[in-house]
């Protein structure tokens, strides 16, 4: 008889009651149990960063976290970024404007990494952004356009904040 754990998981502001085997990672619960397939799974050992989500606001690897560990935490996935009408948020728009993606497989991970990072550090230097995005793997862009997108998004947010 496989072990089943009953948990309540808070994802993108909604609470979900789940009955899952403890060995199920957060990435798999998001995709298979909740149908939130925006979170991608690449390497399943914490190297590629495609599965990056926010756990209580901090970027984290959903493949290196069992869903049972994060009961009570606030999880945010890439699906939380766009508005209710599907309009992209400013970070997503910056990735589009600066060609920060080609095939798009790694993009949800980079978006959530940047979303969590900019919330903590709204005034990063380009060098600091480079160091942070080194945590995720993109095999299309060569990273420059991703760094551009994050840098411009941060700059625009600061400008909007100052004028607003």
């Amino acid at each position, binding site marked *: 008889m496989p072990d089943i754990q009953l948990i309540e998981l808070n994802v993108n502001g909604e609470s979900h009651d789940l009955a899952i085997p*403890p*060995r199920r990672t957060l990435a798999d619960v998001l995709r298979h149990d909740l149908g939130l397939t925006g979170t991608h799974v690449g390497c399943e050992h914490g190297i590629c960063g495609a599965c990056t989500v926010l756990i209580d606001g901090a*970027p984290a690897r959903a493949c290196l976290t069992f869903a049972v560990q994060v009961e009570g935490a606030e999880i945010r996935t890439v699906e939380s970024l766009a508005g209710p009408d599907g309009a992209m948020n400013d970070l997503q728009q910056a990735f589009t404007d600066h060609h920060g993606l080609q095939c798009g497989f790694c993009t949800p991970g980079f978006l959530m990494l940047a979303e969590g990072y900019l919330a903590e550090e709204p005034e990063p230097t380009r060098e600091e952004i480079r160091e942070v995005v080194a945590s995720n793997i993109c095999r299309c862009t060569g990273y420059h356009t991703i760094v551009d997108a994050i840098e411009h998004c941060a700059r625009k947010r600061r400008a909007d904040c100052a004028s607003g």
Partner: protein
Amino acid sequence: MKPAAFTYHRAGSVRRAVELLSELGEDAKVIAGGQSLVAMMNYRLARPEHLVDIAHVKGLAGIRRVGGALHIGALTTHHAVEVADLTPDFAVLSRTMRWVGHLPIRTRGTIGGSLAHADGTAEWCILAVLLDARIVVEGPGGTRRIAASDLFLGPFTSALEPDELIVEVVFPRRAPRAALTEYAERRGDFAIVAAAVDLDGCPEAPDIPLVVLGGVAPTPLPVRLGPDFTGTTGPGRFGEFATAVADQVQIRDDTGVSAHYRRGLVRTLVERACEEAAQA
């Protein structure tokens, strides 16, 4: 891959965690941030039958200054140390955190988990030995303190009993002039060589830097040079000192990394760490 099945136990207190570990025996592993353990489970290098989750235990996270010492709770994340203001006495800890994996690893991984994992190249293991840390451990018999130099027995092997839990790490001595630096082929990988230096690390020989190396032995390797090197704390002599350290350590050829190459890294990184420590 997907990890093998296991039974999940959530401990609400240190006492309960120790009880669970005593009941479940060697088939149980403690999970805190899980940043090493879950990767190993996904690879099926680890297949524990039971996981005891201590992440919800109150009071195990946080950084306190107690007199001249620094106490760090076992569940304190690398990132919490990275952003803490530990200047000037323990700033080396914050500065070193940038070498630990990547940001999304540092937000989950913990100091206690890193020490219990006992990877000889891990930054926390090297820092603990460099700064003479005391590891506070709870077990069925109560509390005991393990000196960092006695904690690491071999690769991924520590002096912790299966029913013991790290609750706190105490750094007893201030280290305003210390630094750690390392080299890996890609940022965030496990270091091929890591070098940590405390310019004031040898109380019995105050002019000779204490060096701890990762990646040259199964466990963090302290290197103390003799009185001939008195006065090497001054800039300009760090290169000479680093060469002497590199000449002294025994290094064997390894898969993909020759002893010659690794010795060169030791020399370069020890000199670099000395310079960073002097500027700290």
